[in-house]
């Protein structure tokens, strides 16, 4: 267990390092430029340099903030993320704790992130931050629902909440082939849950300066950043488990396949970010409540019908 926890922390750190570099390179090449090239081969060590810089920055706490809440918010956003790693199956044997309620645990803890955003925005005592926090709460709550319903469709097919069971059930074919709509819905909701473009209103730079983390500097800002990338990893991991057969694949070891699938989905999310403009807030909420939830319900219904009739 302890080894597992240490392993998780190491994984999270390396993952974040790698993802930040990947994001910069992907965005650069999509924008006809090169990205970081100086520090290390093709800028590979750039993130380390940035992290060192961030650690050296002065931690400014504005005077009028709600101190306990302000200081707790970066921690609260990070903890659930770490806990979720306990149940993710990296390969047949690489699960720290294969719980019976695996998927429920993941969904429950992901929701805690919203609390952290609200804490950050409210305690900052700043109009822009509050705006960002309010928007993010509305957005996350709205997109949780189709996410849950979509996951339910898959669970119905498997009949168990255990993540290893879900992976095992995809032995002959991956669920994406029978549940394409669910996959699309899941990716959309996941992009919204992690506050990525085109759903990145809570951090909308051109409208709200920096949204809910306007007043955070240095290492505290880095925590929010890290949490976002780790969140991306987790939602992609869940998607890989639910739809892409987890660690299954020929020839290469399970871990490698798993990581490949996760990073492919992360690349997809990055691709979205650098292609689309931002969705307006009311359009965002309308999309969730009027389009995604009915579609998710319809999908659930059809799944249930098909299973019953089989």
């Amino acid at each position, binding site marked *: 267990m302890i080894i597992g926890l240490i392993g998780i922390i190491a994984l999270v750190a390396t993952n974040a390092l790698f993802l930040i570099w990947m994001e910069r390179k992907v965005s650069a090449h999509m924008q006809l430029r090169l990205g970081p090239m100086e520090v290390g081969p093709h800028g590979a060590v750039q993130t380390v340099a940035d992290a060192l810089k961030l650690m050296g920055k002065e931690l400014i706490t504005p005077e009028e903030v709600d101190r306990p809440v302000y200081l707790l918010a970066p921690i609260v956003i990070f903890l659930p993320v770490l806990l979720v790693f306990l149940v993710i199956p990296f390969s047949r044997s690489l699960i720290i704790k294969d719980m019976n309620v695996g998927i429920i645990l993941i969904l429950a803890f992901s929701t805690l992130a919203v609390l952290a955003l609200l804490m950050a925005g409210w305690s900052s005592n700043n*109009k822009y931050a509050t705006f960002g926090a309010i928007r993010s709460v509305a957005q996350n709550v709205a997109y949780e629902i189709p996410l849950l319903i979509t996951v339910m469709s898959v669970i119905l097919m498997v009949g168990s909440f255990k993540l290893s069971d879900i992976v095992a059930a995809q032995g002959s074919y991956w669920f994406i082939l029978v549940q394409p709509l669910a996959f699309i819905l899941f990716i959309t909701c996941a992009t919204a849950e992690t506050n990525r*473009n085109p759903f990145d209103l809570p951090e909308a730079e051109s409208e709200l300066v920096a949204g809910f983390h306007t007043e955070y500097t240095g290492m505290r800002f880095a925590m929010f950043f890290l949490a976002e990338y780790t969140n991306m990893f987790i939602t992609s991991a869940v998607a890989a488990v639910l739809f892409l057969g987890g660690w299954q694949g020929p020839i290469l070891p399970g871990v490698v396949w798993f990581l490949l699938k996760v990073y492919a989905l992360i690349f997809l999310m990055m691709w979205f970010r650098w*292609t*689309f*403009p931002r*969705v307006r807030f009311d359009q965002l909420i309308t999309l969730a409540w009027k389009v995604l939830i009915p579609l998710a319900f319809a999908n659930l219904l059809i799944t249930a019908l098909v299973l019953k009739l089989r």
Partner: protein
Amino acid sequence: MIELGIEEKTYTLNLGPQHPSTHGVLRVVLEMDGEYITKAEPVIGYGHRGHEHMAENRNYQQFLPNMGRVDYLHALAYNQGYCMAVEKLLGLTVPERGEFIRVILSELNRISSHLVWIGAYLLDLGAFTPILYAFDDRENLLDLLDRITGSRLTYCFYRFGGVPRDLDEEFITGTRAFIKRLRSRFRDYESLVTKNVIFINRTRGVGLITRDQAVRYGLTGPTLRGSGIAYDIRKSEPYSAYPAFDFQIPIGDKGDVFDRYLVRILEMEQSLRIIEQALNQLPNGPIMADKVPKRLKPAAGEVYQAVESARGEFGCYIVSQGDLKPYRIKLRVPSFGNLSILPEVAVDTLVADLVAILGSVDVVIPEIDR
């Protein structure tokens, strides 16, 4: 600080003066009811440098460089307006080749201004990539203009009576290549932006401007043409070499933000047409009027010269009393009138819409503040 009164439901939010999406130093004081705006008041003047006062204390040639700094994105139009106004007072005629060169450079400048606008506008809306594509195209263009005028941004190239330097072969071949390249790039813009569902949803039906509002506020430029009024100085009050060219004035039909965006995209294509025709029909001859006096003492009187800049009608009003220095110069800038419509259009919109509307009006604050 948020002030939430129990009786009042509105609070005040300040957008700017330093803000990523106000293009320049603009402050908009918003009164908001939740996310909806009940009142929007632009506060300008942060960049007031006193150009009109400077005009009264310099002679005509010394004031010419100022024109490039008023609107740095379409500086050549301002050069042109001012030079033409003074030429009217002096009774100078610019030779044909000089006029053609002025038109070519001015249209290239117009394209560069619109490219900046597209990039910056889409950045406001949250799309991070188009700005780099637009600036990539623009680099090409700026290199061409740099060859001839010597500057990349704040041009001071036209002189009273013509232009000081002629085009060379490399410029002409470079421009032809650029035209071809930009035309193929338009396809990218079309598929990535114009047909993008998210972009259309953000811009369709937002920020409607009616014809009546346009007349009452004196709007000009693409902001006006998006509402279906075909008023473009190049066609309505032709000047310089424009009568020789065949081009169209794109107009919108609904007057919303999307129409204003589309008008600018189509205008770039029309500018390319003008440049092509100008290069094909470029006459030989002198580029500068002969017998331009070294000490310019225009006749007493007043003159108003209008030209079409990327943002609308730039009017140069000069009052001369026969001295070396102008008595009064008024720069009628298009963004001034175009921005003044914001309080009326922004009522009952979301902040995100305000950003979209403000961007679609295409203001350059230094020209408003002068």
